[in-house]
């Protein structure tokens, strides 16, 4: 099983800024890697370049030790020779062929004998629990069933890499949940390398072993999902991953942010000249009751409640502290009425610190060591 390597890859359509520019990416063998980002960030382009459907303007793509694209060596392997599998957002089943014929197609062009062909197709259909529909035409199936067929079609040829382009975005919420479990099962059972494109952070967080956050054609961060959540590499990732998104505020505008900076710098004097932006996740902010004594290392501030929005399991509360608006998540009922002044607290170690260019500032020594350890384990 191969590792997919992209180096110095550039792709542009017409004039305007390139869709993907100077992209370096290593997708580990056997991983379930999610390309995550807002629309137009270049994630689908990246996937299509890996598949060969989109030629590069410059750069190199290798799978294992096989060069697929290289503008250095002048090599291009066409998509039909790459032995990959791709599932499309709209399934792209062939309407004129039955489900069985759809699944057999790839085997047929590989000149597999009819008997073996039928058997392998049946196995793939069975794996996707859609074998009962073998003789139907795609138009007779629901969206979720079509998606299963399209997964079976991909699995039947036993590809070395599975590519999925937002495969769940056309399904309803329940089906999406089922298919997530299904995809995770396929990954566990087959051990295939899976590259999965999505703009849905929840999808990425729940399924992936590795998340690649992209924006404007550049990789912002590549890390295991929890790492991306816990230690976002820059303000873009910080804002994009997590719901509701992280509160980010520039320091030094008013009393609230100034105090916050002073608190942080008291513990981290080394960051004095570099700290520009502070981030706090809504779930790390806490409302203090009367008489609560916050522990040491906690930043306590006064805020005014604007609104409290129930979401069922929790409340999303919007408060203002000075000129800064902050969201926080409360798991107990917020009794205070809008306009009431409350005391809030956040542990300074839970704060995320960024410099002027938006990059994450180094964590404290202990954390830094932990990060390295983490990196070492999953990159091996």
């Amino acid at each position, binding site marked *: 099983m191969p590792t997919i390597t992209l180096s110095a890859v550039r792709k542009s359509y017409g004039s305007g800024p390139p869709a993907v520019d100077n992209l370096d990416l290593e997708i580990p063998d056997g991983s379930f890697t999610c390309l995550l980002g807002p629309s137009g960030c270049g994630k689908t382009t990246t996937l299509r370049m890996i598949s060969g459907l989109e030629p590069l303007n*410059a750069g190199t793509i290798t799978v294992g030790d096989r060069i697929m694209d290289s503008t*250095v060596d*002048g090599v*291009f392997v066409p998509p*039909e020779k790459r032995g990959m599998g*791709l599932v499309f957002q709209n399934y*792209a089943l062939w309407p004129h062929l039955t489900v069985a014929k759809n699944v057999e*197609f790839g085997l047929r*062009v590989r000149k597999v004998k009819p008997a073996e062909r039928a058997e392998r197709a049946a196995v793939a259909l069975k794996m996707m629990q859609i074998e009962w529909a073998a003789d139907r035409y795609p138009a007779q199936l629901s969206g979720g069933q079509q998606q299963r067929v399209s997964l079976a079609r991909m699995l039947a040829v036993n590809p070395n890499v599975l590519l999925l382009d937002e495969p769940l975005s056309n399904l309803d919420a329940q089906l999406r949940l089922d298919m997530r479990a299904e995809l995770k099962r396929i990954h566990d059972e087959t051990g295939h390398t899976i590259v999965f494109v999505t703009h849905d952070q929840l999808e990425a967080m729940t399924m992936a072993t590795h998340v690649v956050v992209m924006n404007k054609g550049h990789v912002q961060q590549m890390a295991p999902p929890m*790492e991306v959540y816990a230690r976002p590499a820059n303000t873009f990732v910080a804002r994009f991953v997590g719901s509701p998104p992280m509160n980010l505020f520039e320091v030094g505008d008013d009393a609230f942010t100034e105090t916050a900076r002073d608190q942080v710098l008291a513990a981290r004097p080394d960051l004095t000249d570099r700290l520009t932006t502070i981030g706090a996740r809504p779930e790390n902010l806490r409302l203090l009751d009367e008489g609560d004594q916050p522990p040491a290392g906690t930043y306590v501030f006064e805020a005014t409640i604007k609104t409290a929005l129930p979401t069922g399991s929790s409340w999303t509360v919007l408060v203002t502290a000075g000129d800064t608006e902050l969201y926080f998540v409360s798991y107990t009922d917020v009794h205070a009425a809008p306009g009431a002044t409350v005391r809030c607290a956040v542990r300074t170690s839970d704060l995320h610190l960024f410099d002027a260019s938006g990059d994450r500032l180094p964590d404290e020594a202990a954390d830094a060591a932990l990060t390295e350890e983490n990196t070492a384990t999953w990159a091996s």
Partner: protein
Amino acid sequence: MAAATRSPDTAPPEADGPAGTRLSRLRYRLSVLRHEPTHLLGILLVIALLYLVLAPLVAVLSDSAQVQHGDEGQARQDPGSFTSYYFWRVFRSPVARILFWEPLLHTVVVALGVTVVAVVLGGSMAWLLTRTNVMGRKWLSTALVVPYMLPSWTFALAWLALFKNDSSGGQIGILESWGVHTPNWLAYGQVPIILCLGLHYYPFVLLLFGNALRRIDSQLEDSARILGAGRRTVAGRITLPLMLPSLSSSVLLVFGRILGTFGTPYILGLPVDYSLLSTSLFRAVNSHQRGVTAVLTAVIVVVGVLVILVDTRLAREQKRFITVGGKGAMDRVSDLGRWRRPALGAALAVFTAGVILPVATLALSTVSKTPGVFRADNFTLKYWVGSDLPGAPGFPHGVLRGSQLYEAAWNSLRIVGLAALICGVVGLLVGYVVVRAGSSRTGSLLRQISFLPYMVPGIAFAAAFLSLFAVRRGPVPALYGSVSLLVLVLAVTHLPYASRSGISAMTQLGREPEEAAQISGAGWFTRLRKIIIPIQRGALTTGVILPFISGLKELSIVIMLTTTGTQLLTTLSINLVDYAYDQMANAVVLVIALVSFLATYLTQRLTKTNLSSGLGG
């Protein structure tokens, strides 16, 4: 791998950089092209179409400004030298009035008249069909489009069979034989041309208006009524303004058609020397005035292109306020009440004038010895199956007996059939390239070029083709009189319709089905054979059949390009008119009408498509 991978310096430092040298990048791109023939195919199509569309027009322009052989004396210049003589002759000389100015005036008058007739008939019928509960709505919506399926000059021949007087050759019309004298202004020229073309083109307006009426969001009308506007105010302030785009479009497109139409003005105008630009051009071609032909062609082309450009411009500007209702566009009909029957009567009157009357008149004329006499001994089948007809030395046998009809039918079948086949396949390929090549230059260029022939009025395109292929040019031999010339010109002129349907079929399908096959390991030919063509079978069939039906009825484009060996059904009928064998000309037109109607009907049945949407004409 580090957590943050933004640094650009991870690429291996190489002498020629991570992108490779210019040569290695070129090798990469060539390798891509080798495996993905779409762009190559697109470029080939672009070159072929550019040659077939632009080269004739360039040839015409150069002919118009060069002294032609035989004109040295008049132009007082050597053959081949640059001259403004032909422009002078067409625009300023003493004969300019006959050559150009009168035909231009006639063309404008006829176009205006036809537009009025077509908009009145088509507009009112469109309203009846889409917005009222007129009796027999469904049947009428098919029946009222039939006049557009008949060859356009059917009406002209029927008119003559009714109104012809004894001032021109051949048999007199029914009225005259009843002793009712028909004056020339009623029998020939302006009035009958306007009425006949109006009857042929009203379905065109009906379709345009009908679509527009259906698309208007009825919520727009409802909101006006809720705000207190009465029925009349709504019609005047809301509905009519929303219909303006289709009105301007109808006017311009009908005008464009009139520029290029030949049969009707030829048949009805000739006896009284009433010419339009198209017949004036035909006369110039027939009298071998190459220079004058070229100038007239250029003028018609320029006007035709202007008409289309103005139309697309208007359409684009009007897009700003056209509201295409998805949800609100329901089937909102007003109850005609006691007017239901009279409305049906009006629609039936239009149907009678547009279909029953002309066809019955023609049919009757082919079986009558003396027109309009209903006695048993006056009926005869000799014009159909007789032999040794007196006074018809060129065509001694009835149309079904002699060989001319069968030869012409065979020619029509193979020439139009081949052209339609080419048209359908190329149309689908254009769609394939446009969709596959996406937003690349090849794709958009091809889309525009395949649309070009639409802008050139038919008869002018034929004249331009004649001017290019009459003589050997470089490696291209003289094609005049050959089957291939007819096939080419028919294929090119019908390509806009075929490629439009090809593009819409391929756009609807999208790229994914083919890409899925590609990922599954199928090469280009396998993909085309196993995926694209099977899925697009239906689109391909209509892409062939629609040009075929329209080509069968085509006259303006082929009239100058056929010779005795390549006579088609349509040109045979005009030939018979020339010889004043009216009954036999009528018989041939009936055969064409029958064949094209049957083909249309069968296709509609077989493919379950609505042909009215693709009628090119």
